[in-house]
Structure formats: structure tokens, C-alpha cells
């Protein structure tokens, strides 16, 4: 079960149609749609990747494999943008 930690340099602003993330270290920003914003809020609550996938399957009209692919892709993007990092817990 993979957990991720939001890096201290990351700021976020939730909006009605998504969210904007900002990394104060890299000076880069990242926009999220509504689903991405939900994933970010789950990361803020220390949800694991598996827990995020299960939540999306419950809350959205999506099958687990599709949810897993989308979550995995976004987490990879957020890691690449240095907004989150994997943790051992």
C-alpha cells in the first residue's frame, strides 16, 4: 500500500471547478480538474493510493481498473512536479 506525503513547499487552493497547486521551490504551478482536486484532498488526509482508488470507485461512475490508471497517472505527475513524494508509511 503506497502512501504519499505532500511536500512542505506545496501550496494548494481549492476552487469550484478544481484546484491550483503551487510549488514554492520549483516556482511551478499545476492545475487540477474536479476529480484531481478530490484526489489532492484525499492526499491531504494521508490516504494511500489504494484508498484513493476505492474512494473514486465509490464516489464516481468509474470501474476500478480505470480509476487505478487515472490515480496512478496523476500521482506520477505530482511526484514529477515535486508536489508529493512517496513515504514508507
Amino acid at each position, binding site marked *: 500500500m503506497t502512501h504519499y506525503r505532500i511536500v512542505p*513547499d506545496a*501550496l494548494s*487552493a*481549492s*476552487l*469550484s*471547478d*478544481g*484546484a*491550483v497547486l*503551487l510549488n*514554492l*521551490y520549483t*516556482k511551478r*504551478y499545476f*492545475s*487540477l*480538474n474536479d476529480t484531481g482536486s478530490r484526489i489532492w484532498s484525499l492526499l491531504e488526509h494521508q490516504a494511500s493510493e489504494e484508498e484513493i482508488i476505492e474512494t473514486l470507485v465509490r464516489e464516481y461512475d468509474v470501474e476500478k481498473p480505470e480509476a487505478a490508471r487515472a490515480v496512478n497517472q496523476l500521482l506520477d505527475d505530482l511526484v514529477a512536479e515535486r508536489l508529493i513524494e512517496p513515504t514508507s508509511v
Partner: protein
Amino acid sequence: MLKLREQARFYVHAAGVIAPDGRAWLLTGESGCGKSTLTYSLARCGWPVLGDDGVVLERGLEGVTVHGWREPLRVSIELAAWFPELSRRESLVDWQDDRHRVDVNAAFAQRARTGGVIVLGRGDRDVLSPLAPTAALAMLVRQSTFLLLTDDHASSHLSVLRDLVESVPCFTLEHTSAQLSTIRDTILAVAG
């Protein structure tokens, strides 16, 4: 500007003008997108100016207030074809300036509650389109250099920008020189 941050007032690279209903409209966008020119066009219509290249935002009880950032309003002398009064100021042109700008007169104001945000971009047609909050916030982040300071105020700065785009209508305006004479009507058509 750093002192302002400590007072929860945040500078943003945008022009600000006050519409007849007393609300401030922010015109933002990359350098050269027409902020000063369109600001002057509105100033000629009697709209008070808060700034043509920067304003200061502050969260208030009734939304986000825009404070003026008073610097001389300057426009290119090449606009004299649209604004004939500029030709009388030709002797004042800064020819060292690559845009050949000249100081112009405008009525400045101190502050106003926000009415809307328009992201400007030059184009080959005039199209005003609604802008979703996330896209508007991303643009304002791009125009807020001081947001990137790693101090205790960065979070508040981002939060004020978020409150702004969530509380007022936001648009993109792809524009041609036609807006030099129609920008007032463009804004009035969408102002509350």
C-alpha cells in the same frame, strides 16, 4: 511590497479601473497584452484608474478590495491615431523607451471592491469568453511574482487570489485595436 505582504495586502501585475457601478475591473495578462492602452481608453471615458501595471489586493468583509498602485499612466505615442489628444504631447515622449511612451493624464482612485477579472491577449479578432475559476487563478498566479516568496504569507496570498476568482466573473478577451474604442462597452455588457 514586502511590507504590504505583512499587512495581508498582495501586489498583482494587473491594471485596475473602476466602472460606473463603483466596482473595480482587473485587466491582466502578459506584458504587451494591452493593459495600459485599454486602461487609458477607459480613463478617457471617465473611469478612475487604480493602476495600469500593478494593483494591490486585500481580502475584506465583502469580498476582495483592489487598492491603487499609483504610478504615472504611460501609453505609446503611436496611439495618437486613435487618441488625437496624444499628438499634443509629442514633445514629452521618451524616445529612449522602445515603445515611445508618454505620460498621460488620468483620474486615480484609491480603492474599490472587485467587479471582475479580464485576461487580455492580442489576437486577430475580438472575442470575450468566460474563464473558469481554476484557469483564472492559474493566470493570476503567473502574474503574482511575490506569491513565490517562501515566507509565511504565501498561503494567504494564494488564498486571496482564490477568493477573488471565486467571487467575481472572469473572462478572457482576445482583442484587436477595435477594443481601443469599444472596451468600455465590452465590460459594461458583462458587468453585473
